[in-house]
């Protein structure tokens, strides 16, 4: 029975792997693999129960006796093995289940599931091995599969490099394992595990020591012990479930090996002290490495190193049972920590708005609580009988408990009851830890042989580490910090290339420049002016907790879209359009019609003239259309004879042009000249420094320096201490730092001159430098305008650091490889010119075009010269970039055509402004595209009139929750709050929040305790197990709490005068056009999105509310409109809001489509039936919208399953948010009601008849329209280049700093834009990247008036950043305002029949 159970456990993952390999459907594979691994975990649990009664289960399938050692193949399970098997199977099941949703649609998801299952199977083969041969085979195969998992995103160079390094390291470890096991077995011994264990004491000491040493090496490699630890952080470049699987499961095999071979370890002379030494050095080093990290997953990865070191040290001390407990405890905790790492951002946001702790703590309380904890720990240990390992455990547990208690008591205002509860809990958990560890260890029946030598080595190592750490931190804090930041890298001092004079040469260059220009103030001013232009190429990026949609080219909106995108392609190497092949596919599929292409070509005139081919005349437009419809630039190779003729016809026509070397930085020039990767090295160094500096609030040991030091000042202070830069050129950096000016503007000027950049080219050089790291450059631009809100980092700081590294690295390379100084001129002169972009028609393109026109080689050879010239012109004019522009225009034309057709021929809406008595309510929604669906369904569900307005409902304020640390700006990014509304403290609620915070602080402090963390993970594993179970059965409990900030009218009065309140109320109502005919019930419905474990949660919330949920704004404005004083003043201004009308606030959850109504108790009793009715209709509308949205989500889930997505921690697409947005319509609802616009349009209510001076229209077009255009352009660019202009895949994101942003994997630039999962389902792009179409229902002259008064808006239209169409209210005709601002715009193609829209 037991053997069958073990075989079943082995068969589960093996069959799952096989299934994943043979079945092509990834979704099916994920389902089946998850189910099989789940069943395996259940079987493993049953196995553990079974071995609880029968300690060992031997099941030899076959005994092999080849020449050499004999060995068995089969299974062998004892209690420890069964526990390990359950751990591996349980983790695999959790990871597979999580990965099924997390990686849904990801390319390679099937392979990943196969590898996880196979690695599980291999590890189980190893764990249940009855012989060393089987153990070695399982070990090696699991390692190989692990490398495959690390290389999941193999297309990235740094992943490939990590895979190469890890493979080499694992090869060494595997070799050591095989050699060590071979030595143990001997040439003709018995390789069975039991035999080896039994005979361990009889072997010669040297043999055991050598074999043990080799096994230690193997274990060190696999469990990332210092110095073989650096492969582990690179696992962060794999998807989160893989990181969890590796850090929780796979690294533990070394511990398993040592515990399994405990008799050998104990018998081998010197091995245990060596293990203690290695383990403790690793534990201490790993703790320091983790302390300096500023990102969540990076910290977790280094903490794994520390924990693995601790476990090895436990083995070295002979406490194998405790080591086994730690192995399991750490694994479960770490798996949970990785899988929930995305929630760090939401937790940090919550903490930022939580009540401020009021300190200092009461001394008496701290002493009493501390004494209680120490007494609990001491009594427990004394009860158990103090032993060396017990005392060690007691110290660990006591430290963690004390840290927790101290942190919990840091807030004097926290309820005393909470403090007592936390103290009791800490004492109980510490005591429980001391009791449970030995109990479990005894149950596992593992040996314990703690020796005095081991304890002595441990004590000595810890003492040396503590003293050395204290001395080094005091005297060489900066150097120690760098060492930890570089994961203990000891530098490249042995390399001959590490030229110590490199830094001095760079310093001399700067000194010479500064001497020549003794007064560098004019230079500094020039730098600032150059930077003002350079900075335009990068848009400011808001921190992720207040996600604000930004056009990545916001600074270039003064130039036309075509030119700005061309510059971005040239300077930043980004893609700015979809591939033309995609557009051709759409033409084939009918999404774009030939007429759309013709219209786009007509709007983009070329120089081509009609030609005659074979007696037929081909009009110019057809000729150009042929060039677009056929892959002339990217098609298959043309026939050789045609290509040969094309070459002949083009010979001598246009010379190729060379790349302009002025466009490249010195680092890029050197890279191009000698094949180095200095540009990338500089990127990595600068990005690393920015992450350390800007993310330092999250580090336990932040980068040293005063808190108010700017980035550049801090770098100058620190850079010289970087003793192990590991890159040639950085040695001697201190010399360079010493001569650089303290002011960053002067430093940049000096560095530019040292790099030989002419002042006229400074702006271009700085642009290109900024665009190397657009994420950090964007943060710097934000930081410059928000000083003091987060760690300061200005663009000048960023450039000063960048150019310093560049001068040092490029200087060294230029000196060594080219023998010249690192100046633009010198490096360019020393480089052989290389041909760049050809300026003439490519023969292949010409050949393909002629082929498309049905011309063969002989005909082409005989064509007249003029005809060939025309063909050449077409090929040159319609370059790939130009083609993409024309195709984009065609796609936009197609959308506009369909939208017009839909509006013209949709279902006729019911008449508006019905009798007030028959209208249930008037409901105002945000203009967000998601509201369009709810409005449509609500109108269908009942007599409700709906309106659209920006979701902050016109009240730009900052709200501060009672006693909170930080407020939230509830207005669009274009505005600054006009007032701060502070919530009045509700004592009960604040006390509750303080109590919650005290528990959170206690938990965080125990986790962060350098010593206590080793005990913490074991205790936390119990919580993690419960949380894992709870996530499965009641995920809703983990959903982040809704924003319950509820300022009262009194709070509003304290912030805004009555006049101001009336001003904003009037502006809102007039802009909506809702100034009369009020229904008895008016609903203001904001929106927000509930999602879990999602760093991009704010991106789903309301953009008009500054990335916050809209319910709070709706409540504020509803309260304001319900005030009799406000109504009275409004009446004086012509807006009569009847006394019997009540304004109600609500919030639409866009993930679940449920609408929550606020303050219903305050609704007058006579209106309650209406509210109940409205509630029912809203529920009906929500259900309808869910059903509609379900069809658009990947895998087409059932509508009711959409509710689960809000609390699903593995869900990377809680909803599609604004994906698909394409148009902004400002019009009365009559124009759009009853039409299904597919949740793609921003709908703003506007009634031109009440706006003779275009005041309301101006507000709409300069506010909501511009915000909508930014959102649209962010989606556009995140779709066309998801990796450079978007945030890449979410699966490798790690949260940086205090909710500052995310990095991808093991480092790199701060990510910008939207993640891949927001714009696509993995296999296809879901967002259609079109520039926004603004449709304004108003007389043309009103629109012209607004454009005339607002040059910035006009630039957006004239520059082609969006298109503007005016719908004539009298005729219903659509008139486009073309780019360039022509006042006599041609009418758009008419729909099948014209209709009047005016009711």
């Amino acid at each position, binding site marked *: 029975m037991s053997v069958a159970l073990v075989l079943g456990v082995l068969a589960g993952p093996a069959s799952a792997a096989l299934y994943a390999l043979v079945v092509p459907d990834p979704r099916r594979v994920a389902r089946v693999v998850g189910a099989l691994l789940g069943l395996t975990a259940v079987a493993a649990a049953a196995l553990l129960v079974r071995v609880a009664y029968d300690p060992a289960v031997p099941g030899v399938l076959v005994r092999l006796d080849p020449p050499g050692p004999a060995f068995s193949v089969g299974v062998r399970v004892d209690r420890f093995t069964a526990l390990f098997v359950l751990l591996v199977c349980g983790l695999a099941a959790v990871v597979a289940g999580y990965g099924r949703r997390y990686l849904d649609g990801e390319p390679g998801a099937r392979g990943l599931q196969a590898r996880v299952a196979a690695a599980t199977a291999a590890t189980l083969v190893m764990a249940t091995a009855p012989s060393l041969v089987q153990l070695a085979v399982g070990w090696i195969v699991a390692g190989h599969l692990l490398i495959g998992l690390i290389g999941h995103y193999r297309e990235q160079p740094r992943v490939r490099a990590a895979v190469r390094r890890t493979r080499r390291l694992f090869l060494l470890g595997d070799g050591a394992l095989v050699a060590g096991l071979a030595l143990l077995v001997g040439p003709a011994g018995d390789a069975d595990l039991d035999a080896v264990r039994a005979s361990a004491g009889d072997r010669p000491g040297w043999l055991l020591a050598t074999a043990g040493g080799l096994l230690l090496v193997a274990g060190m490699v696999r469990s990332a012990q210092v110095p073989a630890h650096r492969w582990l952080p690179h696992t962060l470049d794999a998807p989160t479930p893989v990181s969890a699987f590796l850090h929780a499961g796979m690294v533990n095999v070394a511990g398993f090996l040592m515990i399994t071979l405990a008799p050998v370890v104990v018998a081998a002379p010197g091995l245990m002290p060596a293990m203690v030494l290695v383990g403790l050095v690793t534990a201490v080093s790993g703790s320091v490495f983790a302390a300096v990290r500023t990102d969540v997953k990076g910290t977790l990865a280094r903490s794994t190193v520390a924990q693995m070191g601790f476990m090895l040290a436990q083995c070295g001390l002979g406490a194998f049972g405790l080591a086994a407990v730690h192995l399991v405890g750490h694994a479960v905790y770490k798996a949970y920590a990785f899988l929930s790492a995305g929630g760090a951002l939401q937790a940090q946001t919550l903490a930022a708005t939580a009540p401020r702790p009021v300190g200092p703590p009461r001394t008496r309380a701290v002493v009493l609580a501390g004494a209680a904890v120490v007494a609990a720990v001491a009594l427990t240990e004394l009860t158990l009988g103090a032993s060396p390992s017990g005392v060690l455990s007691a110290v660990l547990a006591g430290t963690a408990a004390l840290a927790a208690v101290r942190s919990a008591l840091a807030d004097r205002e926290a309820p005393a009851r909470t403090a007592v509860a936390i103290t009791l809990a800490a004492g109980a958990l510490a005591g429980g830890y001391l009791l449970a560890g030995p109990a479990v260890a005894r149950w596992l029946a593992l040996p314990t042989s703690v020796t005095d030598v081991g304890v002595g080595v441990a004590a000595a190592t810890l003492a040396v580490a503590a003293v050395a750490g204290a001395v080094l931190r005091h005297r060489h804090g900066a150097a120690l910090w760098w060492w930890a930041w570089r994961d203990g890298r000891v530098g490249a001092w042995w390399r001959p290339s590490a030229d110590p004079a490199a830094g001095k040469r760079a310093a001399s260059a700067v000194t010479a420049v500064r001497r020549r220009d003794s007064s560098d103030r004019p230079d500094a*001013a020039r730098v*600032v002016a150059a930077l*003002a232009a350079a*900075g335009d190429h990068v848009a400011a990026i808001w921190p992720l907790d207040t996600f604000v949609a930004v056009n990545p080219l916001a600074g270039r909106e003064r130039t036309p879209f075509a030119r700005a995108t061309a510059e971005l392609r040239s300077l930043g190497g980004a893609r700015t359009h979809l591939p033309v092949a995609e557009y051709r596919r759409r033409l084939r599929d009918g999404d774009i019609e030939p007429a759309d292409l013709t219209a786009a070509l007509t709007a983009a005139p070329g120089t081509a003239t009609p030609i005659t081919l074979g007696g037929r005349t081909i009009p110019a437009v057809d000729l150009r259309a042929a060039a677009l419809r056929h892959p002339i630039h990217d098609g298959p190779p043309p026939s050789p004879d045609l290509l040969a003729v094309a070459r002949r016809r083009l010979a001598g026509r246009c010379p190729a042009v060379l790349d302009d070397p002025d466009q490249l930085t010195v680092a890029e020039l050197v890279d191009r000249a000698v094949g180095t990767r200095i540009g990338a090295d500089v990127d990595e160094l600068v990005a690393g420094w920015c992450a350390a500096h800007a993310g330092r609030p999250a580090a336990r040991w932040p980068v040293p320096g005063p808190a108010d030091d700017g980035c550049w000042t801090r770098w100058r202070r620190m850079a010289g201490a970087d003793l192990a830069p590991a890159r040639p050129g950085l040695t001697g950096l201190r010399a360079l730092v010493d001569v650089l000016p303290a002011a960053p503007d002067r430093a940049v000027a000096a560095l530019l001159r040292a790099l030989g950049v002419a002042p006229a080219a400074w702006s271009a050089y700085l642009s290109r430098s900024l665009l190397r790291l657009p994420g950090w450059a964007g943060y710097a631009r934000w930081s410059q305008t928000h000083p003091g809100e987060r760690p300061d980092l200005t663009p000048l700081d960023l450039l000063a650091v960048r150019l310093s590294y560049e001068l040092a690295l490029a200087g060294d390379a230029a000196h060594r490889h080219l023998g010249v100084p690192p100046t633009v001129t010198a490096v360019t002169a020393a480089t052989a010119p290389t041909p760049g972009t050809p300026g003439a028609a490519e023969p292949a393109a010409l050949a393909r075009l002629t082929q498309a026109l049905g011309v063969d080689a002989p005909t082409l050879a005989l064509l007249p010269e003029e005809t060939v010239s025309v063909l050449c012109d077409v090929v040159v004019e319609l370059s790939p970039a130009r083609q993409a522009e024309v195709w984009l225009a065609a796609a936009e034309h197609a959308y506009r055509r369909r939208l017009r057709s839909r509006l013209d021929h949709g279902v006729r809406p019911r008449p508006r402004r019905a009798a007030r008595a028959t209208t249930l309510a008037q409901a105002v929604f945000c203009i967000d595209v998601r509201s369009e669906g709810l409005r449509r369904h609500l109108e269908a569900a009942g007599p409700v009139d709906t309106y659209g307005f920006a979701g902050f409902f016109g009240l730009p304020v900052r709200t501060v929750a009672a006693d909170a640390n930080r407020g939230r700006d509830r207005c669009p990014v274009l505005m600054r709050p006009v007032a701060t509304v502070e919530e009045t403290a509700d004592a009960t609620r604040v006390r509750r929040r303080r109590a919650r915070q005290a528990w959170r602080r206690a938990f965080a402090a125990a986790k962060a305790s350098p010593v206590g963390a080793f005990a913490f993970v074991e205790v936390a594993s119990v919580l993690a197990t419960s949380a894992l179970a709870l996530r499965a059965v009641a995920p809703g409990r983990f959903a982040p709490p809704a924003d319950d900030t509820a300022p009262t009218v009194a709070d509003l009065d304290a912030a805004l005068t009555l006049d101001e309140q009336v001003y904003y109320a009037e502006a809102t109502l007039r802009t909506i056009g809702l100034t009369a005919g009020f229904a008895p019930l008016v609903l203001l419905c904001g929106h927000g999105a509930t999602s879990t474990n999602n760093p991009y949660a704010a991106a789903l919330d309301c953009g008009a509310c500054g990335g916050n949920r809209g319910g709070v704004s709706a409540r504020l404005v509803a309260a304001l409109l319900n005030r009799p004083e406000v109504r009275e003043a409004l009446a004086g201004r012509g807006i009569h809001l009847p006394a019997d009308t009540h304004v109600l606030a609500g919030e639409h959850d866009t993930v679940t489509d449920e609408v929550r109504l606020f303050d219903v108790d305050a609704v007058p009793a006579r209106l309650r039936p209406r509210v109940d009715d409205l509630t029912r209709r809203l529920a009906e509308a929500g259900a309808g919208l869910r059903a509609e949205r379900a069809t658009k989500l990947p895998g087409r889930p059932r509508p009711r399953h959409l509710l689960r997505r809000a609390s699903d921690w593995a869900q990377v697409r809680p909803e599609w948010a604004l994906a698909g947005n394409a148009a902004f319509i400002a019009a009365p609802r009559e124009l759009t009601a009853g039409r299904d616009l597919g949740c793609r349009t921003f709908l703003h209510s506007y009634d031109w008849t009440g706006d003779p001076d275009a005041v309301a229209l101006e507000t709409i077009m*300069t506010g909501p329209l511009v915000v909508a255009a930014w959102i649209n352009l962010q989606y556009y660019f995140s779709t066309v280049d998801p990796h450079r202009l978007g945030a890449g895949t979410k699966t490798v994101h790690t949260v940086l700093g205090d909710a500052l942003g995310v990095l991808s994997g093991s480092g790199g630039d701060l990510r910008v834009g939207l993640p891949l999962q927001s714009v696509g389902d993995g296999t296809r792009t879901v967002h259609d990247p079109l520039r926004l179409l603004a449709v304004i229902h108003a007389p043309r002259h009103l629109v012209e008036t607004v454009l005339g008064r607002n040059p910035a*808006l006009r630039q957006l239209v004239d520059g082609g950043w969006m298109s503007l169409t005016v719908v004539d209210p009298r005729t219903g005709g659509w008139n486009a305002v073309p780019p360039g601002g022509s006042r006599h715009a041609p009418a758009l193609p008419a729909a099948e029949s014209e209709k009047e829209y005016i009711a």
Partner: protein
Amino acid sequence: MNELGLTRMVKVEVVTRADDADAVRTLLHASGVSGWTSLSGVSGFGHHGTHEGRLLFNDRAGLVMVIAVLPPGRAEPVVTGLRAILAHRPGVMFVSDAWVSRPEYFDGDRPAT
């Protein structure tokens, strides 16, 4: 004006979009100008048409006037820098003489490095 005990200085007035005013202020700071005055909600008429003083839902598109007074010796980098900043964006710069009674207020040199 010397007889009144006043000292001649250079006054620089810049009218630019609120979005671009930060670049102007950074330039003044880098040039060692000791202080400046910013006026928001500036309206007027010019090359780009009428400029409204304030928009209801957009604080960034409005105009800002930055006024700085500086010693003549500091004018060159400021004017050169402003010329470069205004080369590709809307805005105007006026430079004129001004007379001040406390010249030391306007000579805030930064510490030498």
